[in-house]
């Protein structure tokens, strides 16, 4: 009874409206992005609606159960995530030089997407049960570091640099919450700063270095990637203040944008709706992330706070890296724009994350 009352009275409307707005705009944009594409792609905006619906259902289920249950089963979830990642190597076929998807019937599951949430929950459980009043030292980072490393190594082996980076960024963001002693922090930064180039020069053999460089910039090998990034800039820049209008973006309609439905949906939007539309969309993402931080700050316990912050970090880093990449501020790595890019695993993960946020938000007055 108490649960139901909480759901009704404490429902986080701003969060819901923001997410709904991004999702609706995303579907509309997807329609435009694929309107001139090959027939196979033209209907994916409908599939995106299905995924969003499925995701919304998942979010409701996730939000309905008191998050303290998740704390209890945190390790189990983590174990499932890692098992799936191992399963990838047994089941997945290679696509574009990497193994990322497990085929399930007619669609494919990308376990590395789900792993992001399992990692957040696992780290939250660890920090929840490891409260400190005095500052933390490097020793306190060993367990969280191990929690990160296991899936990280598996994902790097696929290889999927983008997702690996996101995991690291989420980890750093969460650990930033904790109070690490200044001395430990300095030691950590200095050690990493010194050891990285040394390891690069002396530990790695030339062929290994070469692997790492082509690994850091895998798209360098793909013909014309620089050209594609350039065309994305052309699309954004040519949008001007107000844009060229819905379905009127020439860069998109004339097929100058690559992967316009997965990694490059933002240039489509920026070309059609200009600076004004772009700022509005970015504002929605910013509001979403700030709401997430607010929910974390209002959480009544450590687990809720860390989960809310982890999900916020997930959304934030995806958004920033994707936008930075399409604007030419960052190199091209395959990272989706949350709820805007087409993709089942991505949408489900984001919506599940939103469900966790909603869960923490609804229960901020409990206990």
């Amino acid at each position, binding site marked *: 009874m108490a649960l139901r009352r909480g759901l009704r009275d404490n429902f986080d409307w701003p969060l819901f409206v923001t997410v709904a707005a991004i999702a609706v705009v995303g579907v509309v944009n997807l329609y435009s992005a694929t309107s001139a594409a090959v027939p196979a792609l033209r209907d994916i905006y409908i599939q995106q609606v299905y995924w969003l619906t499925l995701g919304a259902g998942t979010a409701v289920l996730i939000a309905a159960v008191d998050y303290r249950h998740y704390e*209890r089963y945190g390790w189990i979830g983590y174990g499932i995530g890692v098992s799936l990642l191992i399963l990838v190597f047994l089941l997945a076929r290679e696509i574009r030089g990497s193994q990322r998807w497990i085929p399930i019937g007619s669609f494919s599951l990308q376990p590395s997407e789900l792993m992001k949430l399992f990692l957040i929950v696992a780290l939250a459980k660890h920090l929840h049960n490891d*409260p400190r009043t005095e500052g933390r030292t490097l020793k306190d980072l060993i367990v969280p570091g191990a929690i990160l490393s296991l899936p990280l190594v598996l994902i790097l082996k696929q290889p999927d640099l983008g997702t690996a980076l996101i995991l690291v960024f989420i980890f750093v963001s969460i650990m930033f919450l904790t109070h690490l002693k200044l001395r430990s922090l300095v030691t950590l930064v200095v050690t990493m700063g010194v050891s990285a180039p040394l390891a690069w020069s002396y530990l790695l053999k030339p062929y290994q270095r070469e692997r790492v460089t082509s690994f850091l910039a895998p798209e360098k090998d793909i013909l014309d990637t620089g050209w594609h990034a350039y065309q994305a800039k052309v699309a954004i820049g040519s949008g001007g203040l107000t844009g060229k209008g819905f379905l009127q973006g020439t860069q998109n309609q004339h097929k100058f944008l690559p992967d316009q439905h997965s990694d490059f949906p933002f240039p489509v939007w920026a070309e059609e709706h200009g600076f004004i539309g772009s700022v509005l969309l970015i504002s929605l993402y910013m509001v979403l992330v700030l709401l997430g*931080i607010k929910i974390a700050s209002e959480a009544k316990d450590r687990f809720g706070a860390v989960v809310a912050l982890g999900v916020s970090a997930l959304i*934030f880093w995806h958004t920033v890296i994707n936008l930075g990449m399409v604007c*030419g501020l960052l190199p091209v790595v395959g990272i989706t724009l949350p709820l805007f890019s087409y993709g089942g695993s991505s949408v489900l993960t984001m919506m599940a994350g939103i469900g966790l946020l909603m869960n923490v938000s609804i229960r901020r007055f409990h206990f």
Partner: protein
Amino acid sequence: MIMLSPRREVGEFRKRYKWMVLFVLVTMLSIVGRLFMLQLVQHDRWAGEADRNITKVVRLPATRGLIRDYRGRVIADNRPSYNVLVTPRLMGEPQIESIAGLLSLDEAGKQRFRNLLGRVPERRRSHFVQAFNDISRDQYAAIETHRRELPGVNLIVAPLRSYPFKQLGAHTIGFLNQVSAEDLKDMNGLGYGPGDAMGRSGLERAWESYLRGRDGELRVMVDVRGRELDSSAQPEKPVRKEPVPGLDLRLTLDMDMMRSAERHFRGHPSGGVVVVDVHTGRVRALYSKPGYDLNELTSGLSQERVREMLENPFRPLIDKTTYESYFPGSTFKPISALAALQDNIIPGSTHYDCPGYYMLGRRRFRCSHVHNDTDMHMALVQSCNTYFYRLAEQVGIDRIASYAREFGLGEKTGIGINTEASGFVPTREWYVKNHNDKFQVGFSLNTAIGQGDTRVTLIQLAMMYAALANGGTLYVPQLVEKVEQADGSVVHEFPPRIRRQINVDPAYLEYVKEGLYGAVNNRKGTAFEARIEGGVPVSGKTGTAEVNKSKISPKEDPRRAWYDRRSHSWFAAFAPSDNPQLAIVVLVEHGGYGGKYAAPIAIQVLQDALGDPSATKKPVLVSKKP
């Protein structure tokens, strides 16, 4: 009931949230700043780029104006040529192979094609580039048949310049070739693009702006692969700007007369002929031998052919009618005679004795023969040097020079094509300056007979004889009579231009003309041998201009050296004698004696142009080849 974990203190996290919010704000704002940069500050650049991405501009070349001769025959024409355009982005190795197969290219040709494709910059790879020019009929048919299987290949028909008269009048008409990268830089804004042809010499160059016309263009929308969108998907209608054809030139040249000059020149390897209308200064023939085939130059010469032309001892690239200047020899004598008469230094009746030479101090000045007692008339008829030596002694070099300049020597005539030489008329002052401050009377003597340092071009001499013939009017030589549109309507018509009215007494002019008449028609005349019995009456003056007199060095090829040392053979004339219409100048380079080689050519060209075709023709003498 499941045991949920107890509440845990969140105080450790409290202080961190505000830094996170700040970080989020700064990051998001920097992205907005980047968008501000791209979408507002640099918008024009990116919008232009987006526009260029999707517009394909197909040039519609303008038809170059035609060049016609005085009778309306086409001298410079346009014929269709087939060119192959390709879209580099669509050219993979199989496409290259199949195109090479259809055009039957050899390995080297295939490699050139690959290199061409490789040079196209990334942003132009979805645009058409011209890959093959002026392909043969068979190649055209092969490509046309398989065009559907070759996306990204297009055939266009472009006009190519053709010259039906080939080498005849080559120097005057001129040729075209493709603009180079430097030209494009120099002529920025004049609308030339890569692959355009422009006039490089002669009239084609001088009248480029009239002949050229203005290219049109067709703008179509394309997708990323360079394929045209079907019309329903075109956001705008294709924009078509029609080309404006160039204007036609109607020349004063008469190709019949050019042909006649060529025919009568056939025995000699090198020289030139100029014919002008004495009443207008319109040039009827401008012939320089040897020439070159304009079609060959317009379609591009191989390295070997270029070297061959540059090394040819008869210098085919030199326009001998306007660019080269020569000693006038005895064709200059009418000037000396007029200077003496007009300034009342010596009347025509003055007699001098010619023992075959003239002694000035201890120097001996030669004459061609022993002419004995002559007056000025007979001196002109027989081209007696001695008479003119004596005359020069009294007239002086400056008076001769001033009449020479009066008749247009020593300065450019203003014919307006190619590079024109101005020739040279020496004065006393010049000799003083160039000969150790000492003037010698011998300089005057040589000048009076057209040796020494006087240099003239063929066109200058022709204008001078036209002025002698028409009573003293010096015209500017004219090559273009009219500028017309393709439908024949006249845009500009150019009237004859008088340079100056020469101040000479008509009686003296008449006296000199009688001398010139005698040179051809008097039994003792220097050109009597070349006279056509019953043909059009010709008045003229022979000239034998001595050239290189240095000793033959053992290093030289003796036959070449012998040729190079032989005098140039001149004849300058007008006809008909009683009512002059045409003036002619013939120069046979290293031909030898003027009356024997140049005069027959001139007289026969005049006979072809003005005379009764039934009149007897004399055989052409062949100059001794090296």
